[in-house]
């Protein structure tokens, strides 16, 4: 539900079929983007904050203009719900992963309605997807983390066995983090696929919950179904913080790219967690 486009803004999307842009520091709603037919599942902002892409259960991916709130492009082609969406670094390509097991690469520059390329290697729905430079990381329900290396022209498949809920790159780009439905978050070495760390203790059985790394790669954070955010030390693997967010499931979280600032989403509200001194200076936004 929450996603920091850069450090200062936040995109929330939910079952109200709309997409909302918030200012994190002030906690005010800046804009609402509505145009999806079903609940919005994921959103991402381009590097220059000029465009937003979002995906929905209505099988479409929509490219928005941030300032005007108009639909710049509506991309159809997926056969099912679109789970995740992401810009590439230059905002020239939108990558969307769907429950139909494909990742589609859409060109934002041209007026073509078809995807540039369809990556149909996954044998089940694609649940999560991340882009870093020339690499594309996808996590699929078939229990595999796939990394497409455009520069080398290679596809690396790591078998995790349990359905993947979230994948992400570490900030230094050397590792991949993947959380799966066996209630484990695993840190894998990117080049060899070896496991560098396994973080357990939280509960992730049925929901598609997020995990992430802190801004300096020191900690691993993951949502949990027991209403906490778990925070492990990356190297030691020990649980350093168990952040009580609420009673319900913490659905999403996102870490500030530079500062110690955490966003969590739970049941229609997004909370901003600051650094140690003022432990929780949260702004609660009702969506």
């Amino acid at each position, binding site marked *: 539900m929450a996603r920091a486009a850069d450090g200062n803004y936040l995109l929330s999307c939910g079952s109200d079929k709309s997409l909302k842009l918030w200012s994190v520091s002030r906690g005010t709603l800046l804009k609402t983007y509505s145009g999806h037919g079903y609940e919005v599942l994921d959103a991402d902002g381009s590097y220059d904050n000029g465009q937003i892409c979002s995906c929905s259960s209505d099988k479409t991916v929509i490219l928005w203009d941030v300032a005007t709130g108009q639909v710049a492009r509506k991309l159809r082609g997926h056969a099912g719900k679109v789970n995740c969406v992401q810009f590439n670094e230059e905002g*020239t390509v939108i990558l969307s992963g769907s429950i139909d097991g494909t990742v589609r*690469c859409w060109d934002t520059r041209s007026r073509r309605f078809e995807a540039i390329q369809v990556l149909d290697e996954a044998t089940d*729905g694609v649940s999560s997807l991340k882009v870093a430079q020339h690499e594309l990381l996808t996590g699929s329900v*078939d229990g595999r983390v796939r990394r497409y290396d455009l520069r080398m022209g*290679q596809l690396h498949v790591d078998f995790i066995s349990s359905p993947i809920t979230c994948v992400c790159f570490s900030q230094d780009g050397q590792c991949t983090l993947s959380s799966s439905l066996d209630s484990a978050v695993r840190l894998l070495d990117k080049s060899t696929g070896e496991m560098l760390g396994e973080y357990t203790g939280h509960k992730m059985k049925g929901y*598609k919950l997020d995990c992430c790394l802190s801004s300096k790669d020191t900690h691993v954070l993951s949502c949990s179904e027991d209403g906490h955010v778990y925070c492990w030390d990356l190297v030691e693997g020990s649980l350093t913080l168990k952040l009580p967010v609420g009673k319900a499931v913490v659905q999403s979280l996102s870490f500030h790219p530079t500062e110690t600032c955490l966003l969590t989403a739970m049941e229609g509200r997004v909370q901003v967690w600051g650094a140690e001194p003022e432990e929780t200076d949260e702004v609660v936004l*009702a969506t």
Partner: protein
Amino acid sequence: MASDSDGDEDFVSYGTPLEPLEEDEPRKKPVPLHEQTVKDEKGRFQRFHGAFTGGFSAGYYNTVGSKEGWAPATFVSSRQQKAEKQLARPEDFMDDEDLGEHGIAPAQITTSQEFSSSRRDEAREKARAVNAQAALIPGDTLLEELIAPARSSIGVELLRKMGWKEGQGVGPRVKRKARRQQTGSVYSSTMPPAGSEDSEDDDDDDDFAPEDVTFAPKDVTPVDFSPRSGVRGLGYRGLDPGMALLGRAAPEHIDLFKPQSETRSRLFGAAQRGSRRGGGVAGQAFGVGALEDEDEDVYHKDSMSRYDTELGGEEPGDGLYGWTAPQQYTKRRDASYLGKILEGFTLTQRAGEEKTIFPPPTLPRDYRPVHRFHLTSVSVSRLSGVSPALAEALRTSRGHMVKEEPQQGGRHQLDSGQRRALLGEDVLQGPSSVMELLKPEDRDRLLNLRTMAGSMAENAARSSAVSLAVTSAVAMARSMAGSMAGSSSVSSALSGAASSSGLHQQQQEALASWRGVQSSTQSFKPFEKNPSKQARYELYLDRLRQGDRDAVEQSLDSGMTEWERSREREEFVRASILYRPSSSSLTARFTSAKHDEDDGDTVEVSRDQEGDVDDKQAAVKMKMFGKLTRETFEWHPDKLLCKRFNVPDPFPGSGLVGMPKVKRDKFSVFNFLTVTETPPKPPETGKRSRWDISDQKKKIKEEEEGDASLPACSSSEQQTADGTKVFNYLCRQKLIRTFRENCDEELVNRVLFNQSVDQKSSDKKSNGDEEEEEDEEESRPPMDLFKAIFASSSDEKSSSSEGESEEEEKTKEDEGKVEPQALNLFNISSSVTSSSTSVTVSTCANQQTGNLKISGTFSQMLVRQRQPSWLSTKKRFSPRHHINPAPIIR
């Protein structure tokens, strides 16, 4: 979705929630027109008077306030006032718009003539004069000077009253320094007037200046901030009016420190030369005028006299800092700019920031600016169809086994022997050359011929008689052909050797790839349309498998013509290479049936299939991530995608996108399936159900099964095609494997025994069935499980089974032996009996855990369905590991 109860006061909530929609609330009916009324604030009804209902009745009560309402203004004649009418000004005919800010006569506050300082403003005038010097129409300042103003502005009057005199500056009086009035006539052009205050001060110091005498401040020439008009470039001036009209002679030399001359010289490059001609118009915009005597200098010829001819010859003090000024002056004042400064620009005092230029890194000596992609490896793996792992092994092994030859381009430059060495294969038995196939006398003859031809050609070349050589060669060839006409085998071998040694190589290749391959039913039939040809081809393949070297020759039809044979030979060899068995038959076993084009015989399969899931699963359980769980495939990104990602195309020139695909026979997959240990049972095995307890019942059963088995039999052939997918999946799910592993051998034996018994006698079978039935009764899962499974299965299935059950019910009712409790079970089993293959699975599965049962029943349903397209199978199986969709809101 308002904020929670805990800490409401801390939070900011946004917006007002909508009223909850009541589903059962009756919808509001639209109010009819006659009931739509309007009341004013006092609750009185208001009436509307439209144009169609009597017009605007704006009387006393209803609006405008007067009793009569709207009334036309009374007409007043202006006849009497005619004489009083004055002349109309234009403003009388203008409305407010015209007088507004953007109108044609904007009425704005301006300084009146009296207060404007335009007339007698000496300083301004001076500035204007300076600017007007280069104006297009020269001399308009002269005209202005001629006409004396009648009055001065009030500002000037005030200044005068304060003691200001014309020519003085404005401001408090200055002490000590006498300000000499600069008139311009005193200082001729030889003396630099501006920018030389130092010299002026020196002069002042010499004069006597009493302490109590103050002087008026120096008059300052204000900068004229007139905006640029026109489209000319910066620094351009069209004409020199002074030159044109006054014929004034410009100073002879470029004096850089005199502003007048400076402007001249910088504006008109040919000022000196222009001065030599008398009058006339000159400027950059003009060529040669009609009044010109000569046209020598039009095109800006530079004369050497303008430049210094000796280095350092001039004294630095003489004010001549030109282009070739000595170093110390250029340092002090950037002389390169002098004379080139555009109008309105001044030289900056501060020097600009110096850019630090980092030198480019020194390249290593052996650096080559070309990136080489590993195309060799790509081509190897793509062409030969070997798995990437093998390709990798090949690549690495090359380094150890063979001396590295860097200039070796690709695989095709190796000969077969080298390649064999690389692959680590044994030396092939039999002859290595076609020549060895020949009889010794034939070989000798051929060798003789060759040496003769060689010596002949040599001789011919030596004698340099080309024509002779040609004729002799032709003659030789003829004689050769004549001599060889005898034995067809020799000629064929020769033609084979002569036509292409490549064919021979291919033959070797085919032999290498086919030798030792199990004689499984070969899948692809390239010559299916020609059965005899296909038969020959299969014969050839058989021979290849046995390692026969001259497989082609032997398998060809001897009754055919030579040409046909040679063609067929090439075809066979090519086909055998093209459809060579894959190195890993296991990987070829699985077809991801994503494309359900039923018309074609082949299916596009991605070349690199994923390895066994079981091994990986075990590795994951042992937490041994890494090599065991990591697989790397070749993947071709789209060209445009690379472009958008700012990444060079990793496979330039290859049109592939995605994973490399290989056309593979659709049916091969099914044929390769050798995992099923249990042979396909005859349809009678379907009878082995637990309902034939009594003999009468069994009879009914047999009738029914007979009916049911017929379509099952006939459809089984059709199903195999569709069933490939299912079987793939079954293999994937390790159903059979687990069956083999987990199932106790006793059970297997019993099943097998039952089959054999089935074929022998029905009495024994019934006994065995009863035993079987008892076993099943013991281990039968609760009914709920079945219900749950079948309730969640497709509607199609349930409806069909209902139909069947109805029929069966009827038959049972006819017999009058209806068991209500068994009926439900029967519904389920009716689906089981319809397919022969699935029965084996289900009967075995019944002994297994619930998990297996589920997959077993799934497979039945799939086999039962007539069109198990990939999508549907996928959907059907997706619940196995599906994330709970309901709670996901994002």
